[in-house]
């Protein structure tokens, strides 16, 4: 290489010997960096690895998957789950309305949701964020989510935000592997086994509705809700995105979502948009309805309304 270095510094090592030593050291470093992988216990089984996308599953595939997941849940939590996959109902499109004039920001919906949908307790995952807003302002940037104590506070109103189940959902467009899509009843669902954890959907969502499992979710066994849906509240693995799904396992069986049932003020309304006599249709026809971030063109199925 350098002619002037050679004469003064005679100590040299052949290129071959250097490459051998450097390669050995590099392999050592790589091995040390990968050492934590020896603790990996939850590698997917072969069937899991070769599983098809949810929409391509035959009923037999689905039954096998349900049996397998039930077994995994029972092994991990000691509770036998009633895991089902209720199909979308004909002639039903779900819609949600929330009375911002009545909501007092007590956050009961947040915890009813956590209870119902087996969200991780620590690290904490919650689908609903309740924004405390200054009266007269609709600027979500100045909202506060960390209020405590007695509610409602003076000069504040409360705007809970969760997945809006958009008709033109940006998260569905953003997903590179089609792990999230819109069902015929309007609910945007996630195939937890198909999600690769890239979190593009989180970046795409204008409502901040999606949550990522950065760590293995932790749910106390005695708090596990055994009524589970395959696309809704079955326990999620680490590294996938989850979000509100209008309590699919409840609503496709005709029930109200957990947040609607728990709201002490009756601010939360849910029903079939295609039924002209449903409470949701009535609200959309007769109340003042506000769509959050209407200008982004997502056409949500989640509406805010107020009386008069």
């Amino acid at each position, binding site marked *: 290489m350098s002619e002037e270095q050679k004469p003064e510094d005679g100590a040299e090592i052949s290129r071959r010997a250097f490459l051998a030593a450097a390669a050995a050291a590099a392999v050592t470093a790589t091995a040390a960096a990968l050492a934590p992988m020896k603790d990996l216990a939850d590698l997917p089984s072969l069937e899991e690895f070769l599983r098809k996308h949810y929409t391509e599953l035959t009923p037999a595939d689905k039954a096998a998957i349900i049996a397998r997941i039930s077994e995994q849940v029972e092994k991990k939590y000691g509770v036998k789950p009633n895991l089902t996959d209720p199909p979308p109902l004909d002639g039903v499109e779900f819609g949600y309305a929330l009375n911002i004039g009545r909501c007092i920001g007590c956050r009961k919906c947040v915890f009813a949701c956590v209870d*119902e949908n087996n969200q991780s307790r620590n690290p904490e995952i919650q689908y609903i964020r309740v924004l405390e807003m200054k009266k007269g302002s609709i600027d979500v940037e100045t909202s506060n989510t960390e209020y405590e104590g007695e509610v409602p506070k003076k000069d504040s109103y409360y705007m809970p935000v969760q997945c809006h189940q958009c008709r033109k959902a940006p998260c569905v467009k953003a997903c590179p592997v089609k792990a999230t899509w819109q069902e015929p009843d309007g609910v945007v669902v996630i195939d937890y086994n198909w999600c690769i954890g890239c979190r593009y959907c989180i970046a795409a969502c204008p409502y901040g509705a999606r949550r990522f499992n950065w760590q293995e979710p932790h749910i106390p066994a005695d708090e596990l809700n055994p009524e589970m849906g395959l696309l809704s509240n079955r326990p999620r693995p680490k590294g996938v995105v989850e979000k509100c799904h209008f309590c699919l396992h409840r609503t496709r069986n005709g029930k109200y979502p957990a947040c*609607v049932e728990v709201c002490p003020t009756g601010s939360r309304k849910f029903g079939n948009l295609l039924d002209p006599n449903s409470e949701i249709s009535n609200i959309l026809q007769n109340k003042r309805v506000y769509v959050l971030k209407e200008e982004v063109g997502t056409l949500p199925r989640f509406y805010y309304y107020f009386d008069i």
Partner: protein
Amino acid sequence: MGNSSGSKGIPMWAAGVSVGAFLLLAAVFAMNLLGNAPANDEIPKLSPEYADTATVRKVRKEMTFDGAPCSSCHEGTEPLQGDPREKGVFHEKIEIKHGRNQHCFNCHNRRQPADFSNFDGTPIKLADVQLLCAKCHGTTFRDWNNGAHGRRSGHWDVAKGGPKPATCIACHNPHWPVFKPLKAAPAPHVNPRTRKSARPGAEHGGHE
């Protein structure tokens, strides 16, 4: 190392540095010198009351006072005459903060104290108390019937049994009907990595 192989040789110090760098990396990884991510905080166990679906008030099934039926005192066809406060201590604890209503018989029935009173004095049963409230709150009654006002539980699907609306007095105290403040359930827990205090220079740490 001959003269010809000299051009292929690597200076000892350079080889040492590069091999040493790899070995240092190996030591950093193997001994976990970078340390772990901040540990998770303790998050208190969820209190079941946060997800309790009970209404804020208990709806009584029958009109009683201290377990005794109204008729045990308010017997007879005509109500007590004179100032009720002179008759003894019975309903003093009731605070009336219901608009301009200051009188028991604005709502309670004169002749049938276990019932309520319609415009023409005909009784309204406790089970139909929404009809009493509707006397003044007509638009709210309309909304309640249509599902826009008040709590509903059960099924949205009429074919599966339909919704069960909560009655007015399940949420409103009829003597003081404004909805009372509640204690908020805990605020969302902020991850130790993203907490503002952990990152003094953070610009996107939460709100305000």
